[in-house]
């Protein structure tokens, strides 16, 4: 299966795969096969980390505040290149982050995910949750070089939109290609309380401080990874448009909210890629309690 995947990647004609192609400045890497997961107490932590990652709503219940699993944005349980894989993130820290203006270690980076993407409380660095996620990511990065930007890290860069991303065009794309799974109102779909298709906006989705609230990040993720089973069917413009549409809906407040939407926008969302603090259909985004 792995051989087939690699062969298929090499033969790929999709621009996504081209973006992941060999670049001497960005060494390629593949995580160890699932079957090689270690045994013993360390293996238990790795396994718990994988469970938290895949079934966050169950294994981090009470920590998180939305209905999202880590694996909803980091596909194939954090293994897939071009989908912000954990093996590439793990070797990328410690690093300085503009977001909190300090050097973060990997655990602190995970805390950021809980605070924003999971709209939750922040587990302590020595909590079982953070340590298990570190163990899982460390194992995925086994034998990966440090100090290098691994190919496949983050989401692949997307060409700028030829036309400004547009809400109405995005809505057309959403209805045609996204709502089947994510629902007409972005509410996601569930089975027995398990999130199957993640909510994209509204109270059960990531909050305004999350990376996916950036139209740019969302467009990159969407273009490289969506829809499941039909990747490559959206044009670059469609990816930008639908990202604009998704991120033009309200969602839980940014936890850094200062009491004023305008001031919070100025402090944390002063970017053409953030719709926070902008009015859409008469509603001021970010004004929900």
């Amino acid at each position, binding site marked *: 299966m792995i051989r087939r995947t690699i062969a*298929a*990647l090499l033969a790929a004609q999709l621009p996504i795969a081209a973006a992941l192609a060999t670049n001497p400045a960005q060494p390629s890497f593949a995580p160890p096969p699932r079957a090689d997961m270690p045994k013993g107490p360390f293996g238990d932590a790795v396994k718990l980390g994988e469970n938290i990652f895949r079934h966050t709503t*169950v294994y981090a219940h009470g*920590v998180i505040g939305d209905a999202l699993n880590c694996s909803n944005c980091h596909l194939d349980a954090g293994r897939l290149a071009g989908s912000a894989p954990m093996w590439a993130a793990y070797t990328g820290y410690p690093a300085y982050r503009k977001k909190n203006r300090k050097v973060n270690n990997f655990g602190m980076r995970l805390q950021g995910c809980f605070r924003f993407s999971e709209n939750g409380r922040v*587990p302590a660095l020595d909590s079982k949750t953070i340590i298990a996620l570190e163990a899982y990511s460390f194992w995925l990065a086994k034998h990966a070089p440090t100090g290098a930007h691994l190919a496949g890290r983050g989401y692949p860069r997307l060409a700028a939109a030829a036309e400004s991303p547009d809400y109405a065009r995005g809505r057309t794309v959403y209805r045609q290609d996204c709502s089947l799974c994510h629902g007409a109102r972005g509410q996601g779909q569930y089975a027995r309380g*398990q999130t199957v298709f993640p909510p994209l906006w509204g109270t059960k989705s990531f909050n305004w401080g999350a990376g996916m609230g950036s139209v740019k990040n969302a467009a990159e993720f969407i273009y490289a990874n969506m829809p499941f089973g039909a990747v490559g069917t959206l044009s670059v413009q469609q990816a930008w448009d639908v990202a604009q549409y998704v991120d033009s809906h309200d969602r839980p407040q940014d936890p850094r909210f200062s009491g004023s939407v305008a001031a919070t926008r100025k402090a944390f969302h002063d970017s053409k890629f953030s719709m926070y603090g902008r009015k859409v259909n008469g509603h001021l985004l970010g004004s929900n309690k």
Partner: protein
Amino acid sequence: MRMRRPRSSRFAVISMALLVSPISIGNGVAAAPPQIATCASCHGVNGMGNLSAGFPALAGLPAPYIERQLTAFKHGERKNAVMQSMANPLDAKARAAIAAYYATLPVPATPEPTKKLNTQGEALAMNGVWGGKLTGVPACDSCHGPYGIGVGVSFPRLAGQPQSYISAQLTAWKNGSRTGDPLHLMSNVARQLSAAEISAVSAFYASLSPNPTTLPGLVPDGGKQ
């Protein structure tokens, strides 16, 4: 399955009660239209299908999904001589009545996977084969729900369906004899599966309970912080 029913299927049930038959037979099961006697000869009186003959269970499937399949047989998007002859004479009202009936039939609850699991099938179902030349194969569970119990009105339950039925459908998606899938999701995926993979993943889902009382690994407080 006695879980939250999608609004659209509730709506279908309500419309049926108003338009076709004012009677329901209790426990929330919609009244059986006259065609059901014929359906039952293959799909079972309880709507749970026939495992050895490979006839799928219909009980508890979403009404809009069943309706769409009847239309697909009629229009040749799904090719099956028997089902085509059954679906041909049905009008929209009859399709809705049949669908509403099966959607409300209870699915017997059984604890957990009952048969031997196979690792290749389980890996495909739970993990998929992401990336690759076309679109990659997402985990089947990522659309059909945990342990294949089905999601919403467009992603039917796979758990407990006959192995021969699942593999025949995957093969039909693969070779293009079954069409009409939204966004071509199933044909894209099935084209990337080998015959061995189809066989393995079909056996895996066939071995699962259609209405499990527990979802293994998904216990509510499995990972306290």
